[in-house]
């Protein structure tokens, strides 16, 4: 089977198809589908232009073509063309037709090759005098009627030269060409006589019945295609002037290459623009079934990208491996300064301990009013009455806390109070045991009126349970003895049943938990709560000691209070031995803070006042501290 290549998309189709199966463009040339008259027009060779008489005929033909009946109705260009100069008419476009190298405008060739208009059939020729009076007809139209009468010879109208207008050469050349044969007018449209008859007789249903009269009068006379006249030697092809080229109809212009290559574009297969390329299709792209474009999965990596990738991988790998820190010098300025402070503090203190100095006087009771209240509550404890001692300080604070704790325990032991020791701290039981060994009568003879209940977990939760039921919260001692059956403790059911509660703690939060959980019940039952605290907890406990109904009836804070109580109770303790060294360390610390602060401010002020000669480019100075 023969194959045809589609003129639009270039794909092969079978011979039988009329439209391309890919782009729906017509496969066969348009010529085959055209009507005969249009096809004849396309295939007809350019003929010599008609003579003057035929000009009138041309003018008349034009008048017939456009249905013009009077001279006033003629457009200007047609009026002018009605009486053209002879030279223009008679000169055939020889140079254009004979020289194959030169481009002869098609319209001009067509003009020169117009055949003689065929004589209209008698039925079509309007009767003279029937429609328009003769005196009203223009000459060319009248001549046209005479020309149709073969007996009347055609007269050439006299040439009317243009006044003051230079005749172009091509037109002159056209005049010089003798025309022996009358120029035959080529009708614009040619019809088959048979078709004409059918159309003219018939037909309201026929499409051609809608044609205007002038078109229907055109006969299907076939004009003889005259061979082109040979060009006489000596004729030089003339170059067309610019204005003429500009006047050239678009259709006759030689097709130039399109601005863009439309061969790759789709052909419109639907809508009024069917068959065209490079236009927006009436069909939405979504409806077009097209095979999706396949993209390659292979990643195209350039060398530059590959090198960057290697760099990134090295960077990520180096993130996982710990980098060795640069060796820090052991003695930095900060370390030296800190060592200096340590030596400045430690050496004088060691010196005072070696000297065993006791020259610093003890603080007065007026400066520590809480100590007197504490002492007063302590001495009010009756013998054999249970006193709860909570040993809640850390092992590191034994140096400060044991001074006061020992003084308290010693004093209570003197008064034969029954001591019940417990702790909410895991180290508390051991520290409580240390205290009890201090009040031992002799080695191996512990103080009989004391019991160590051990550790109470839970913090505030444990204290809440202790307030409600000490028996349930601490049922046995660490030695597996039931203390609540002892005579001194049989009456104890709640915390308020104790005669005194003394809490020894270094932590302000522990003190606050004790006060919050136990003071409401103790206050309600008139039981005093005394606190032995470190210096660091004193500021947060003082609010509980003031007011109309203080929650803490006595406060012993820090070494000053403990030493004072020690002195007040007459208990021999380590406190006095530490007092001188403590006083000296306080003074040295205060002086170092003063000197360090002043020197720091002065140095900072001097640094800021210095001109910034070594300032790095683009480095900003530190922002000023905001005033809150």
């Amino acid at each position, binding site marked *: 089977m023969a194959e045809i290549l589609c003129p639009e998309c270039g794909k092969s189709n079978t011979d039988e198809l009329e439209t391309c199966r890919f782009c729906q463009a017509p496969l066969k040339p348009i010529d085959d589908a055209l009507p005969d008259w249009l096809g004849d027009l396309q295939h007809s060779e350019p003929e010599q232009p008609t003579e003057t008489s035929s000009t009138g005929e041309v003018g008349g033909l034009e008048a017939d073509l456009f249905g013009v009946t009077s001279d006033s109705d003629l457009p200007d260009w047609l009026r002018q063309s009605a009486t053209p100069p002879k030279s223009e008419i008679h000169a055939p476009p020889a140079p254009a037709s004979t020289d194959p190298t030169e481009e002869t405008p098609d319209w001009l060739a067509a003009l020169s090759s117009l055949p003689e208009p065929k004589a209209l059939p008698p039925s079509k020729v309007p009767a003279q005098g029937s429609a328009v009076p003769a005196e009203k007809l223009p000459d060319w139209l009248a001549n046209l009627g005479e020309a149709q009468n073969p007996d009347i010879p055609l007269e050439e109208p006299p040439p009317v030269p243009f006044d003051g207008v230079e005749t172009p050469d091509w037109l002159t050349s056209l005049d010089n060409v003798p025309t022996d044969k009358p120029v035959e007018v080529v009708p614009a449209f040619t019809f088959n006589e048979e078709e004409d008859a059918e159309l003219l007789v018939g037909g309201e249903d026929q499409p051609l019945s809608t044609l205007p009269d002038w078109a229907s009068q055109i006969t299907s006379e076939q004009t003889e295609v005259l061979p082109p006249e040979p060009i006489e030697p000596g004729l030089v092809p003339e170059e067309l002037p610019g204005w003429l080229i500009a006047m050239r109809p678009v259709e006759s212009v030689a097709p130039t290459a399109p601005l863009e290559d439309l061969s790759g574009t789709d052909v419109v297969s639907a809508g009024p623009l069917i068959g065209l390329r490079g236009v927006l299709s009436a069909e939405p792209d979504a409806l077009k079934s097209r095979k999706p474009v396949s993209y390659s999965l292979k990643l195209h990596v350039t060398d530059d990208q590959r090198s960057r990738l290697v760099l990134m991988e090295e960077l990520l790998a180096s993130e996982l491996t710990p980098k060795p820190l640069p060796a820090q010098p052991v003695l930095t300025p900060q370390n030296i300064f800190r060592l200096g402070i340590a030596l400045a503090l430690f050496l004088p203190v060691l010196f005072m301990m070696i000297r065993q100095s006791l020259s610093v006087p003890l603080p007065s009771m007026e400066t520590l009013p809480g100590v007197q209240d504490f002492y007063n509550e302590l001495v009010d404890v009756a013998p054999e009455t249970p006193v709860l001692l909570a040993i809640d300080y850390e092992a590191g604070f034994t140096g400060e806390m044991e001074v006061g704790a020992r003084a308290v325990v010693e004093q209570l032991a003197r008064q034969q109070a029954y001591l019940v020791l417990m702790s909410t701290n895991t180290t508390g039981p051991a520290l409580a045991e240390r205290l009890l*060994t201090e009040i031992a009568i002799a080695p191996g003879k512990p103080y009989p009126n004391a019991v160590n209940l051990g550790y109470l977990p839970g913090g505030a939760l444990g204290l809440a349970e202790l307030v409600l039921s000490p028996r349930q919260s601490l049922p046995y001692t660490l030695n597996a003895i039931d203390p609540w059956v002892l005579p001194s403790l049989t009456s104890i059911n709640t915390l308020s049943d104790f005669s005194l509660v003394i809490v020894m703690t270094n932590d302000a939060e522990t003190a606050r938990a004790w006060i919050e959980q136990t003071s409401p019940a103790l206050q309600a039952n008139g039981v005093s709560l005394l606190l032995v605290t470190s210096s660091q907890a004193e500021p947060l406990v003082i609010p509980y000691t003031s007011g109309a109904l203080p929650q803490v009836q006595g406060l012993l804070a820090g070494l000053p209070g403990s030493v004072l109580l020690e002195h007040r109770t007459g208990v021999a303790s380590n406190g006095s031995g530490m007092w001188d060294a403590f006083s000296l360390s*306080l003074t040295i610390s205060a002086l170092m803070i003063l000197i360090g*602060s002043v020197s720091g401010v002065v140095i900072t002020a001097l640094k800021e006042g210095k001109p910034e000669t070594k300032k790095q480019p683009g480095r900003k100075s530190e922002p000023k501290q905001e005033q809150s």
Partner: protein
Amino acid sequence: MKKALSIGNALIAIAAGVLVLLGYLLPELLGTLRTLLVQWAVILAAFALLLGIINLVMVHGKRLTTPKASLNKLYSAVLLLSLILTILLVGIATPTSFWSVWLVSTFQVPVEASLLAVLAVVLVYSASRLLSRRLHWTSLLFLGTVVLVLLGMAPLLFIGEVPILSSLRQWLASVPALAGARGLLLGVALGAIATGLRILMGVDRPYGD
């Protein structure tokens, strides 16, 4: 399922907390229940402390099993060894025996006290550098108070008690420091109540989902 468990946990916390709180307000009606719940909570707090110790052992035990040799392995080994020996010694001898007290006095007291002694050096160093880092009227007031309290806390060597210093120290502690501490305590109490109420309403869930 996860959401149901989360809501269930929140309901448990809310129910337990509300019952204890109502026990405060209605002791005759809910006092016994409150006591029971608090007792259970105290014992569970001990379990929580035990859980912390178990976690400590697991962490340092895992460090021992790492193939890479480092000083951290030695530290973990020292910790675990001292822990095991302490458990053995105190467990056999009971916590209040001579050897238990000796253990605490020999190892715990010196190390903790020494740490506190080093803290003194660090505190003096940081106080002396404060003004050079931040010159502000509150810093000046802070340092001035520190110096006055330190000087007024004890009589001075070779000088004795300076009345103005000791009076000033006493006034500072009993008036402005009292006011500030009371304000802080009130703020802490309000914050504790707000945090507790948020837990009892299920808004905060520190126990996890």
